[in-house]
């Protein structure tokens, strides 16, 4: 069936079977492979994307459900100038990346949290990552990276508020 949606800020129209998942649509049909396959049962979060700004497992979203909605994948995460986002850069400098397979999902989960709050506690950050399994890092440097980004963004924001 035909599906039209906004993918990483661009309108996309595809013709796909009705019973595939959003994950399959992204990877098998659009060959956007930044979104990873981990378990396909909504446990590992490697396939996390933002659907209308909310964090979801793309393996548990039926492709036609995105009709008319906005999907952001890891390929759509970047700073305004197209370079890696502050969050992505902080993942690098915090040493949060090892094998990297969970990382696109982790970045999406971190971004989803930071859209809700710029003052998360470490425990809130950990809670926000509970749907994303990582087997390499023990999560600690991932939490560091998100915490670092929250601080930077809230400083920038308060700086901006002061200027206004």
């Amino acid at each position, binding site marked *: 069936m035909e599906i039209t949606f906004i993918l990483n800020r661009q309108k996309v129209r595809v013709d796909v079977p009705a019973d595939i998942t959003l994950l399959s649509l992204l990877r098998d049909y659009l060959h956007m492979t930044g979104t990873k396959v981990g378990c396909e049962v909504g446990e590992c979060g490697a396939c996390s994307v933002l659907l209308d700004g909310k964090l979801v497992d793309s393996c*548990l979203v039926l492709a036609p459900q995105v009709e008319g909605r906005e999907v952001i994948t890891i390929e759509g995460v970047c700073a305004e100038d197209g370079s890696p986002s502050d969050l992505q850069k902080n993942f690098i400098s915090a040493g949060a990346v090892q094998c990297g397979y969970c990382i696109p999902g982790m970045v999406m989960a971190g971004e989803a949290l930071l859209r809700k709050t710029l003052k998360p506690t470490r425990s809130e950050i950990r809670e*926000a990552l509970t*749907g994303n399994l990582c087997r390499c890092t023990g999560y600690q440097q991932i939490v560091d990276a998100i915490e670092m980004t929250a601080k930077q963004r809230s400083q920038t924001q308060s700086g901006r508020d002061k200027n206004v």
Partner: protein
Amino acid sequence: MMKEMDYIRPNSIEEAVQILSDPGRRGKLLAGGTDLLVQKRVDPPDYDCFVDISRLSEIQQIRVSDGVFYLGAGVTHAVIAQDPLILKYVSFLAQACLSVGSPQIRNTGTLGGNVANAAACADSLPALVCLDAVAHLRSKRGERQMLVTELVKGPHETALETDELITHFTFLQPPPGVKTHFIKIGRRNAQSISRLSIAAMGRKDKNGNVDFIRICPGAATPRTMRFTEVETYLMGKQACEELYVDAGQRMAARMVEITGVRWSTEYKEVALKAITERVLREVLG
């Protein structure tokens, strides 16, 4: 060649039940999809059409009027967990929904789906049963109502007809002063299937005697139900540690009476005692 799967997104409940009753197709309701799409992977579908009700605004409302809570079946766990009305009056339902899966699952999974899927370990069931929540069902044949405890007959078994959908749940706003609490035991701190859970509502009078109590364990019995014998026992008694311990023993005994001795009973007995005491301490303490 297998028939290609179809997908329809009705614009109203009316339209949805129309599709479900269409003899020409075997429709399957799709709300959050968090259970359905997992099942689809392992079980060959016995349906040929997804009926997507995830955008029906009719089933996504939460409101209280005249002391009656109205909770749309399409409301997601994430929304319930943060809803001010829920947090104010029936916070244990928010606790239960917050214990479901992960942020991703809570963002899509719905209350109606949790009930309709009827897993023995469904986290929202004990709180809904405690509330004597009524499920409102719709089909082309009309409307009917059923207590959640009766709707869910056992693990993955409900009284829902294939052409029926849950539109919403209603329950009475708890009387003033009634506290609610939910406890879940899982094998890890997040994303865990409930080993055992318990929901309770309670209040004591000015003399310290129990004057309101409802208690319902989850993943303890095939049908999720209030243990009314224990509630009756507790009513009117002085709320104190001894009473909670006593109640824990009675809860465990009642569970074994219902289920008989199973592989997990030895553990569930001691654990149910513990969480009964704790939940009573919260709602009566």
